[in-house]
């Protein structure tokens, strides 16, 4: 008995402690990340009508019956045939536009918060973060109240005697929603003040300082901000549903629709896989553009 116990111990002892501590996370990821991912990929190759994965199907009857592989690429063909690729394209377009807008507003904002607004900065920061405490859906309905006919915007234009811009259920309104919702995820890390002063002191112009010192040093942070906002906007759904109605379809909406209303799981799975591949490819491309070595060699 004692022998067996000591034997067990020696096996455990031979596993590095780090691996043991990592075990729960590995199990968790296998079960809840890798597992579903593999399942979705497999599901996307199943024929229409199936709501589960079966690797083989029986064809024929009696003696002629034989087992064949179920896998088919039909679903991917259907994506194009049924025009779902347009929703994918819409998503990419909206994600790119929103990310770009966020990128353009976050530098002046970060700069202002750090250098211009002074004592107002903490209050402004709080104001910017406040929406985070309100549910996304409520914020989006807030926007729709703003843009709707008879809404706030309408009130303002009426008071000013201007024509009412019919904006609800159009792409620009969805972009407003996306920019507002994903705003906290974009950051522009500001560079140490003395580096900017040094650059100016050494003869660099404002522009040279921005592009030779500030931008390169902010790049890793910017890339992470771009990744976060792009991935999140690409997979977003409620913005287009609430602010876009049925006029503007985004890919996440189509996925939802295929799984729930259409009960066409293989199609939904194929759409999901396409989305995952696009996100993965764009992230890898972005990461290849950043020298993470220089990030970790910081002073």
């Amino acid at each position, binding site marked *: 008995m004692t022998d067996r116990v000591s034997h067990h111990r020696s096996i455990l002892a031979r596993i590095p402690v780090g691996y043991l501590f990592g075990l729960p996370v590995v199990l968790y990821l296998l079960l809840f990340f890798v597992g579903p991912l593999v399942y979705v990929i497999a599901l996307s190759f199943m024929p229409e009508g199936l709501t589960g994965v079966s690797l083989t199907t029986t064809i024929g009857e009696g003696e002629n019956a034989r087992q064949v592989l179920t896998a088919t690429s039909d679903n991917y063909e259907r994506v194009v045939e049924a025009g779902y690729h347009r929703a994918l394209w819409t998503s990419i377009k909206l994600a790119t536009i929103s990310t770009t807008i966020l990128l353009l507003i976050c530098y002046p904002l970060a700069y202002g918060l750090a250098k211009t607004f002074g004592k107002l900065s903490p209050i402004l920061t709080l104001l910017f973060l406040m929406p985070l405490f309100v549910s996304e859906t409520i914020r989006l309905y807030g926007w729709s109240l703003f843009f709707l006919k008879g809404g706030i915007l309408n009130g303002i234009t009426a008071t000013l005697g201007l024509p009412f811009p019919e904006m609800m259920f159009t792409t620009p309104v969805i972009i407003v929603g996306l920019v507002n919702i994903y705003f906290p995820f974009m950051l522009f890390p500001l560079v*140490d003040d*003395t*580096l900017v*002063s*040094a*650059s*100016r*002191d*050494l*003869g*660099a*112009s404002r522009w*040279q300082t921005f592009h*030779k*010192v500030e931008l*390169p*040093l902010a790049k890793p942070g910017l890339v992470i901000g771009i990744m976060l906002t792009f991935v999140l906007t690409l997979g977003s759904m409620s913005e287009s549903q609430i602010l876009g109605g049925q006029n503007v379809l985004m890919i996440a909406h189509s996925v939802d629709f295929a799984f729930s209303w259409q009960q066409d799981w293989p199609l939904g799975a194929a759409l999901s896989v396409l989305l995952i591949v696009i996100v993965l490819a764009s992230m890898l491309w972005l990461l290849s553009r950043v020298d993470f070595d*220089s990030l970790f*060699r*910081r*002073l």
Partner: protein
Amino acid sequence: MDEDRILTATSLKKIYGSFVAADVPELHVNKGEFFTIVGPSGSGKSTLLSMLTGTTLPSSGKVEIRGQDVTFLPPERRPTTMVFQNLALFPHMSVGQNIGFPMDVRGTDEAKKRARVMSLLELVHLPTSYYDKAIAQCSGGERQRIAIARALANDSEIIFFDEPLSAIDYRLRKTLEVELMEMHRHTGKTFVYVTHSLEEAMTMSDRLTIMKNGKIVQTGTANDIYTRPQNEFVAQFLGEINVFTVQVINRNDRKLTLSSTESGGNFTAVVPKGHEIGNTAKLVVRPENMRILRDGENCDNAIEAIVSHRLMLGSRIQYEAEAFGKRLIIEELSKVDVDSASLAVGAGDRIRVGWSSDGGILVDD
């Protein structure tokens, strides 16, 4: 205006609310000089520097460079370069890119830039192989040298230094001080240096100015300041001293008779000028100018004291003694043939301490 003066400040003042951070009626730096502003923290030295460099606007007064008013010009529009306290090296650039930055932004061609960076690397005693090295891979001392080389690359007439050596350990600091002096001599540039270390200031500077509470206390060469400190603060700033409160009771040309308010006895002192009869003043005697008298030995000034400590400091022996409730510091050289009278002295012994008339300095009260 004096031809030699490259930088002058006139009636320069910086006031925050009711707090006077710096008040400098006159300050000038000569061309090619190594000038140091020294003072404890809160003395206003950094405020003065920031007005000289242009990062802070003065509340009133004027800063001129070569007779040209630059008071309201930002740092980048002045013919000056700053070496920051944290050095402000660009972490994403190599050593060579850092030093070459001033030439880079001016569009100097690559070959010329490289050649100049190489010669600057040599000047600051760094191997030319450092050209492609990352800043993060350089040691603290190397970074100092890179920052100085980069400032020199900017080729401006005046280089400001804001305590660049404060974070460096003692031995390396000593080496860098000597190198900085060499670089100064070699380049002929005007160096304006700020530090809290008087030792650093005395070692390197041609002239230095001592600040306290926003005001300049004394300006002069290291020797001037050591031998003729203007007041107790300056004298104290130079290390431990013995201070006696005295009143001038008699004057014979340069020789004064002083009455000590603390002991009741009289002292004599030889002074260069000033100090009328009736004035009160402080008599400063440096520990190394005091000695333990042998029995029956005569001296211009002598007081009785009781030894409380005896410290062996290597090249010197320091005695701490008490006389009329006052703590005295006496320092003697530790020589092999030091006379036995001193050697035998230890804690608790009653001794006589003496100093000559020219060994004391009379400063304003």
